[in-house]
C-alpha cells in the first residue's frame, strides 16, 4: 500500500512539475502569461473538461471507455437550449435537471448495452457517439440555439461569482471533483469500481455486483456530461448541433490519461486527473499567446494521449505490476 501511494504521489508531483515548467517556459517568452489574468483564462477553460474527466476517470478505472460523452454533451445542451427557446416560461434552473437527467439516461443506455450483452465499450460508445449526434440534429432540426434564447441568469454563472471572484462554473466543477473524490475514496460502491477494474474476474467472486457497478459508472459519466452540457450553454451562450461537444471525448481522454489513470483499469485518482485537466488548460491558454494557431490543438491532444501512454508504460515497468501478469490484454 505504501509503495502504491508513493508511486501515485510521484505521478501527481510529476504533473505539477510539468505544469510549473510549462508555465515558466511560456512565461519566459511572454511574461504576460504569469499574471492573474491568464490564470482566470485557464480556469475558465477547464470546468467542462473537469466535469467530463471525473466521469471518464471512473469509467476507465472500471476498465471501460466512453467515447460518446461529446455527443451526450451536445444532446443535453441542445435539450436545455430548446426548452429555453420554446418554453421560456419554464423556470430556467430546470434546465439543469433536464440536462443531467437526459445525460444520465443516455449513459445508462451505454452501460446497459455494454453489460447485458458483454460487449466492448469502445465499439458500443462509437455507435452511440454517432447515434446521439444524429439525434441532436433531428430534434433541433439542425438549427442552432442563439444567444438571445439562453437565459441571462445562466450565462451569468460563467461570469459572476458568489465568493472570492471565482465564477460559479469553476466552483461547480471543483465541487464535482470533491464529490467524486469522496465517492470513489470513501464509499463502498466507489471502492468497488477500483476492485472491478483491478481484477474483473475476482471482483464478482468477492461479492461485487459487476452489473450494478458498470451501469453506475456509465450513468455517472453521462450525467456529468449532461452537467457539462448545460454549463456549455452558460459558458458560450449558444448551442450548435454539430460543434457543441464535438471532439470533447478526446480532450477528456487526453486529460485523464495524462492524469495517471491507467488504461489497464484499477488505477487513477481525482487529484491526478484534475491536474491533467489543468495542464491541458494551461497548454490551451498558452497557444494563442505564443501565436500558435488554434488548428494545432487536436494534434496536441493526440500527442498528449500518446505521451501519457508512454509515461504510464515506464511507470508500470518500474512498479510491481508487470505486463506479464496481464498477458495479452
Amino acid at each position, binding site marked *: 500500500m505504501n509503495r502504491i501511494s508513493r508511486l501515485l504521489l510521484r505521478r501527481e508531483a510529476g504533473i505539477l512539475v510539468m505544469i510549473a515548467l510549462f508555465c515558466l517556459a511560456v512565461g519566459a517568452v511572454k511574461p504576460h502569461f504569469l499574471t492573474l489574468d491568464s490564470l482566470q483564462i485557464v480556469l475558465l477553460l477547464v470546468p467542462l473538461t473537469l466535469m467530463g474527466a471525473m466521469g471518464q476517470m471512473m469509467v476507465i478505472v472500471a476498465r471501460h471507455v466512453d467515447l460518446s460523452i461529446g455527443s451526450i454533451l451536445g444532446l443535453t445542451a441542445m435539450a436545455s437550449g430548446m426548452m429555453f427557446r420554446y418554453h421560456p416560461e419554464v423556470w430556467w434552473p430546470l434546465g439543469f435537471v433536464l440536462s443531467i437527467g437526459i445525460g444520465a439516461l443516455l449513459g445508462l443506455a451505454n452501460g446497459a448495452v455494454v453489460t447485458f450483452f458483454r460487449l*466492448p465499450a469502445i465499439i458500443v460508445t462509437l455507435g452511440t457517439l454517432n447515434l446521439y449526434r444524429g439525434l441532436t440534429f433531428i430534434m433541433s432540426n439542425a438549427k442552432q440555439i442563439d444567444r438571445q434564447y439562453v437565459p441571462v441568469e445562466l450565462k451569468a454563472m460563467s461570469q459572476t461569482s458568489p465568493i472570492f471572484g471565482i465564477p460559479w462554473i469553476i466552483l461547480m466543477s471543483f465541487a464535482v471533483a470533491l464529490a467524486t473524490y469522496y465517492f470513489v475514496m470513501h464509499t463502498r460502491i466507489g471502492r468497488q469500481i477500483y476492485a472491478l477494474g483491478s481484477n474483473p474476474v475476482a471482483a464478482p467472486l468477492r461479492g461485487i455486483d459487476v452489473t450494478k457497478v458498470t451501469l453506475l459508472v456509465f450513468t455517472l459519466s453521462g450525467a456529468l456530461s449532461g452537467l457539462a452540457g448545460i454549463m456549455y450553454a452558460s459558458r458560450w451562450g449558444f448551442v450548435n448541433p454539430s460543434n457543441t461537444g464535438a471532439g470533447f471525448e478526446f480532450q477528456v481522454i487526453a486529460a485523464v490519461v495524462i492524469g495517471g489513470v491507467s488504461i489497464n483499469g484499477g488505477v487513477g485518482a481525482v487529484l491526478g486527473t484534475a491536474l491533467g485537466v489543468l495542464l491541458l488548460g494551461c497548454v490551451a491558454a498558452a497557444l494563442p499567446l505564443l501565436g500558435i494557431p488554434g488548428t494545432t490543438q487536436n494534434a496536441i491532444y493526440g500527442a498528449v494521449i500518446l505521451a501519457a501512454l508512454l509515461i504510464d508504460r515506464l511507470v508500470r515497468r518500474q512498479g510491481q505490476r508487470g505486463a506479464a501478469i496481464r498477458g495479452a490484454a
Partner: protein
Amino acid sequence: MSPIESPAVAAPRGAAPARPMWHVMLVRPETMTLALLVLGVLVASEISPYFLDIRYILKSFTLSAEFAIVALVLTMVIISGEIDLSPASNMALSACLFAYALQAGAPMPLAIGVGLLAGLAMGALNAFMIIGLQLPSIIVTIGTLTLYRGLAQVIAGDKSIRVPESFTGVDTALLLGVPVPVLIFMALSLALGLVLGATIFGRQIYLIGTNEIAARHAGVRSRRIKTFLFLAMGLVSAVAGLMTASRLGSVRYDLGIGGELQMVLMAMLGGTYIFGGRGTILGTFLAAWLLVIVTTGMIVADWLPAYQLCVLGVLLILSIVATNIIYSRTER
C-alpha cells in the same frame, strides 16, 4: 478490453456431438449478412427502380469504396484480436501530405510516394506503440486518431488544397464497365480472402486472435504478424486517402472524418468477432455492399444525414449483439 467472465463451473464435459453440416453452413453471421443484403435490395428496389440497375449501384459504391477497402484489412486486424480506429485520420493526413508535396512543386510520382510512405509510417507508429510497447490498441489508436487528424489540420489549416486535373477522376474511370475503385475493392477482397482462408499465414492470424499465448507457444510469430497487419493497415489507408483525394479533386483536413464508424461497421456487420479469432473477408465483402445499399437507399429516400448517422450507430450496436449471439450459440 477483456470481457468480464463469470467463474467457470468445472463440470466434466464429454465431447460435444458434431453439428450437422447444414447447421455449420447456415448458422453463421455471413448468412445473416447475405439475408440482410437480399432484403436490402428488395426493399430498396421498392423505393426506387434505380436499385435494379447494376450501374447505379456500382456508381454508388464508389462513394464508400475507400472505406470498404480499408475495412478488409481492418477485418484481419480485428481477427488478430486488435483494433485500429486511426485509419480515417491516416487517410486525411496522407492525402494532405500528398497534396502539400504537389503544391510545393514535387512531381506526381514523388508526391504519391510521399503519401504512401506517410501512411506506412503512421502504421509503423501504431505498430510500435501496440506491439513494441505492449500498449492496448484501443487507447493507442484513439490517440493516433486524434494526432493524425490534428497533424492534417496543422498542415492544411482550414483551407482545401486542390489536386491537379490529371490526378482526379479515379471514381469515374471505368475498366470493363466497372468503376476502378470497385475493381480494386473486389481484387483486394479476393486476394485477402485467399490469404486469410487458404494460407498458413491466414490460419495463424485466427490462432493469434483466439489465444495469443497458445499461438506463441505453437511457434507462431505473433508479434511479426501483427506488425505486418498494422503496416498493411497504414499503407491501405494511404491508398484510400489518395483515392478519396482523386474523387473529390481537393483535400481538406476533414477528409473521411468519422470514417472509422463505417469501417468498423462493415467488419462487424460482416460477422467479425469483436474479441478476435473469428470472421471472414467474405462477410466484410457482403457487408460493404449491404452498407452501400442502405446508405444509398437513405439518400434516395431523401432522409436527412442526421437520420443516416442514427441508423449507422444503431446498426453497429445491433450487428455486434447479433454476431455475439450467433457465436455464443455455435461455441466451438
